[in-house]
């Protein structure tokens, strides 16, 4: 599992670096443009692929496996298979990202991994996922805790949406605009259901555990789980898409109905932490988780607002969507997983949680928080500004672009802060691994 996490973090750093590079290109369009390998379009696809498939999936899966072990009071089934699966996955992602930079991207958002990569990824996932299934199966017969449902949900959801997208986009390409429908559906399911479930599983686990209080309501969590499963993936079509009205309306209804799980989750956590807010600053894991959950709330609300026809007429195809993605990926998922890793890694390495370097930890937290905020807010302002200006036909397109340059350039600062925070995290992580190795070596030396 450490392989999963270690590699995930490396990919996160790489993805963020690529994102920073692309952001810098707005300051100087000629930056690194002479070679095709680092042109904006390819870097964008590579960044997306390395974040989603290099970081998000392995991190989510690793977290899921760990939670299944913990909550099932059992050990991981088939750890060697998981290890091999992680190696295969990472090799596939490495080759895939390199392939994208060489021009092999599929052209579909969120599904850029080259076609030849997809079966390898699927195979690697199956290896790891089946181990997860067996781990779940060998759990102690107790009442299932919400995190377990979310984990099983996420582990189950990913191969299904991935294979559907692979079949409909790559193997037997659907005709015409149905490709776009599938791609949008996949993106929505990936973000809202897969990442959502994984992050929420972490929140549902760590918040009650570290506060030492029980989760407020099992039934409320179940209600939230099923309504999120139902409506979370039931949408994703932009209002202006070239699709018949019924598809757009159906998507809108599904998106609006995600209000219900949001309310249920917020209520559940509010009741759980209500009288213990003074512990907010006590634990670093909790800080990350709270912030992550807060950003999840903002992002989910933004998703609903952005789907409304009156708003989407202005915000569709602007930086608004990019801001939302930034918030979901970095603000919610990366932060929540960071917090989780700060707990999980010492536990896996059998080190005390104080083994982290606290200075680096603080830098990680604050830089990431500030970075996400700056990035998100400036992209949001750029998006809304772009939309409002474009709605006035008196503004030519290039004028509008120039006027949104300023907030866009500010978002580069945000990207930079995020990159630094991740580098720091990776350094901290490496430090922990080295400590563990040293301990192991010392213990072995003593035994001799």
């Amino acid at each position, binding site marked *: 599992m450490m392989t999963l996490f270690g590699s995930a973090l490396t990919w996160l750093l790489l993805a963020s670096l690529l994102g920073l590079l692309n952001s810098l290109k707005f300051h100087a369009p000629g930056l690194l443009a002479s070679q095709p390998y680092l042109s904006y379009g390819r870097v964008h696809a590579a960044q997306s692929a390395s974040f989603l498939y290099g970081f998000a999936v392995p991190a989510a899966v690793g977290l899921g496996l760990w939670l299944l072990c913990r909550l099932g009071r059992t050990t991981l089934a088939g750890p060697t298979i998981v290890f091999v699966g992680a190696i295969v996955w990472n090799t596939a992602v490495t080759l895939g990202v390199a392939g994208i930079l060489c021009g092999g991207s599929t052209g579909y958002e969120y599904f850029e991994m080259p076609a030849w990569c997809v079966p390898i990824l699927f195979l690697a996932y199956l290896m790891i996922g089946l181990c997860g299934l067996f781990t779940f199966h060998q759990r102690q017969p107790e009442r299932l*805790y919400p995190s377990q449902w979310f984990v099983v949900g996420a582990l189950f959801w990913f191969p299904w949406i991935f294979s559907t997208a692979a079949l409909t986009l790559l193997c037997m390409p659907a005709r015409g605009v149905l490709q776009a429908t599938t791609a949008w559906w996949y993106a929505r399911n990936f973000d809202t259901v897969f990442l959502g479930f994984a992050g929420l599983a972490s929140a549902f686990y760590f918040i009650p*555990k570290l506060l030492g209080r029980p989760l*407020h309501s099992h039934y409320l969590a179940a*209600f939230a789980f099923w309504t999120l499963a139902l409506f979370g993936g039931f949408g994703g079509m932009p209002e202006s898409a070239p699709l018949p*009205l*019924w598809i757009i309306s159906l998507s809108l209804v599904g998106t609006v*109905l995600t209000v219900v799980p949001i309310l249920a989750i917020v209520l559940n956590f509010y009741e759980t932490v209500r009288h213990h807010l003074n512990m907010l600053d006590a634990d670093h894991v909790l800080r990350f988780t709270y912030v992550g959950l807060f950003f999840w709330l903002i992002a989910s609300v933004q998703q609903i607002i952005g789907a409304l026809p009156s708003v989407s007429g202005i915000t569709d195809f602007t930086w608004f969507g990019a801001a939302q993605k930034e918030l979901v990926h970095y603000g919610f998922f990366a932060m929540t997983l960071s917090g989780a890793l700060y707990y999980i890694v010492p536990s896996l390495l059998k080190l005390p949680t104080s083994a982290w370097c606290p200075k680096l930890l603080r830098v990680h937290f604050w830089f990431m928080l500030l970075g996400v905020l700056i990035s998100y807010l400036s992209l949001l302002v750029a998006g809304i500004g772009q939309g409002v200006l474009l709605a006035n036909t008196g503004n030519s397109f290039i004028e509008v672009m120039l006027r949104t340059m300023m907030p866009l350039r500010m978002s580069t600062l945000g990207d930079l802060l995020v990159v630094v925070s991740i580098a720091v995290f990776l350094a901290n992580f490496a430090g922990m691994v080295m400590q563990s190795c040293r301990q192991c070596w010392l213990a072995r030396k003593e035994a001799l």
Partner: protein
Amino acid sequence: MNADDPKKIDPSGSEPVAESWSVPIWLILIFGLLFYWGQLFLAENAGGFSKDVYGPFHSDDDVANANPQDPEAKMRAEGKRVFDNTCVLCHQATGLGKEGTAPPLAGSEWVQAAKGDRIARIVLNGLTGTINVKGQDYNLTMLAWRDNYNDDQIAAVLTYIRSQWGNKGGPITPDVVKSARAESHPGPETSDELLKIPVQ
């Protein structure tokens, strides 16, 4: 992870548990209300789940109406409505008429005359006495419709019958019916009177 019996591991620290507060009723209500809103929204905005309805249109009819309309086709459609409402009872849906009830319209030289002045008067004022249609005499009575239909509707039905059942005749404009209404006297027409009206 040590390689002990998988079912007997109990890691340090307790795992979180969940209490059993029930889902608040207001949340269920909100869910229900939103679901209801969703159904209403889809009824209004899903375009009948038709593949031809794209925003901003709302129904297949909207789309059809927004497409360039053929005014003659519209008139014929309206005329058919009038015919099916009234004329079909005597003149039949086949336009062949019925022995003892009404002469045929299909292939009738009266219907297909170059100008529609005569048939306009027939529809407006009705007909009594003998009339020769397609070589056969019919001695029947037709009711007057000048008080039941306006010029547009009568023009529409005349356009309709002139294009049905193989009839070849151009559309009749409402002006023709209007002048026929003005010039003719109320009271049934007779064949002799009508034959005096020029239709070339």
